[in-house]
């Protein structure tokens, strides 16, 4: 599994790997909001949690089809499926690699972007905590959608339709954690973490079933 994660990281950082695209998309979405909304600091401060979380979600969505599609197209996935690593382990490794190349950089980039959106100082800790604990759910839920649609050419629309409804609880709770940052939203944060933990526990076996069906 370690080899698979390291290879996916290597591929993501190479030319055409998608790492820069995801991060650039997040930066563009969030940086353009002040231009669209105007220099109303109070309004920006109020919408900052939602904008940062929506930006994170859309950036994550942009790279989901790469989780399995490229391996499917070049025959690596069927070779991996006959390797000693179970398909659920392959799904876990690939979702982890996806999180390292999307969720983690988004969490780090959200700090300067929060400043751009006039995020209250007290909310920064909760912003980092909610993104760090919530983005794994985005990667794992996304991996499930990617596993279902792996055999479909240009299945991006179907993937979005499958995954977006499942993202809503994480988005609502994650943005709420940041928005109520001054009132110690530890319980909400625990729920965000719970969604991620449930995703990590339940989704790899479901991915394995979806991949097995697509490989038939």
């Amino acid at each position, binding site marked *: 599994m370690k*080899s698979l994660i390291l*290879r996916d990281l290597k591929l993501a950082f190479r030319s055409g790997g998608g790492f820069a695209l995801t991060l650039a998309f997040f930066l563009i979405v969030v940086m353009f909001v002040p231009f669209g909304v105007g220099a109303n600091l109070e309004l920006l401060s109020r919408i900052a949690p939602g904008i940062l979380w929506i930006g994170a979600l859309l950036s994550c969505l942009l790279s989901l089809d790469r989780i399995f599609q490229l391996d499917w*197209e*070049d*025959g690596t996935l*069927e070779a991996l499926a*006959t390797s000693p690593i179970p398909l659920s382990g392959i799904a876990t490794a690939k979702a982890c690699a996806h999180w390292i190349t999307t969720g983690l950089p988004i969490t780090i980039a959200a700090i300067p972007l929060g400043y751009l959106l006039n995020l209250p100082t007290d909310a920064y800790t909760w912003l980092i905590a909610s993104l760090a604990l919530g983005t794994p759910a985005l990667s794992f839920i996304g991996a499930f959608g990617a596993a279902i649609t792996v055999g479909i050419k240009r299945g991006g629309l179907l993937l979005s339709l499958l995954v977006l409804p499942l993202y809503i609880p994480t988005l609502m709770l994650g943005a709420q954690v940041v928005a109520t940052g001054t009132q110690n939203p530890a319980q909400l944060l625990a729920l965000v973490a719970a969604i991620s933990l449930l995703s990590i526990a339940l989704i790899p076996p479901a991915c394995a079933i979806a991949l097995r069906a697509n490989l038939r």
Partner: protein
Amino acid sequence: MLLNVSNLNCMRADKLILSNVSLSVDNGDCLILRGPNGSGKTTLLRYLAGLSGGRYNNNIAFSGHLDGVKSTLTVRENLEFWAGIYGFDQVNNVMDQLLLTSLQDRAAGDMSAGQKRRLGLARMLLTGASVWLMDEPTVSLDTATSEVIAKAIKAHCENGGAAIISTHIDLDIPRARILTITDFTAKPTDHKNLFLEGVF
């Protein structure tokens, strides 16, 4: 017995392609699948590999029509990845065996189709698996490279492994047995019986 299958029914796109396939391979055996295009050679190999159903042996390596090669990684990086997956650190030996040493720092995307095929097949040598399932391994390979692949298969069988290969050319492997796949082509009546037996 490394692999023993009896009365296997193989389906493709909900259609019964092969019925009652029985075969077995033991240490040192090489089984060549023969049959025209579309007769079910690939389908059978995918079944045996466990891609279309249950696995018959966990010590199996499968090589399909696609090479499983990452174009942005170098030859060495591609092989090191598979060595890590199978825990079989013989990258230098394998590169020597398949004449890839001089290409080790070249990105796979810059290689010819034949060189990529050779790189894809090099994965088989890194699996350490006892049964190799190979689907048209010599496609895009010239005569000299086909001989290199045949030599690797021979060495694998001589070392106690076994191989089931679908190919249209003569690989010149001693002790190789031929299995004519058309002998197992499903008849319409087979399909009907399966339906009645509640397979679907």
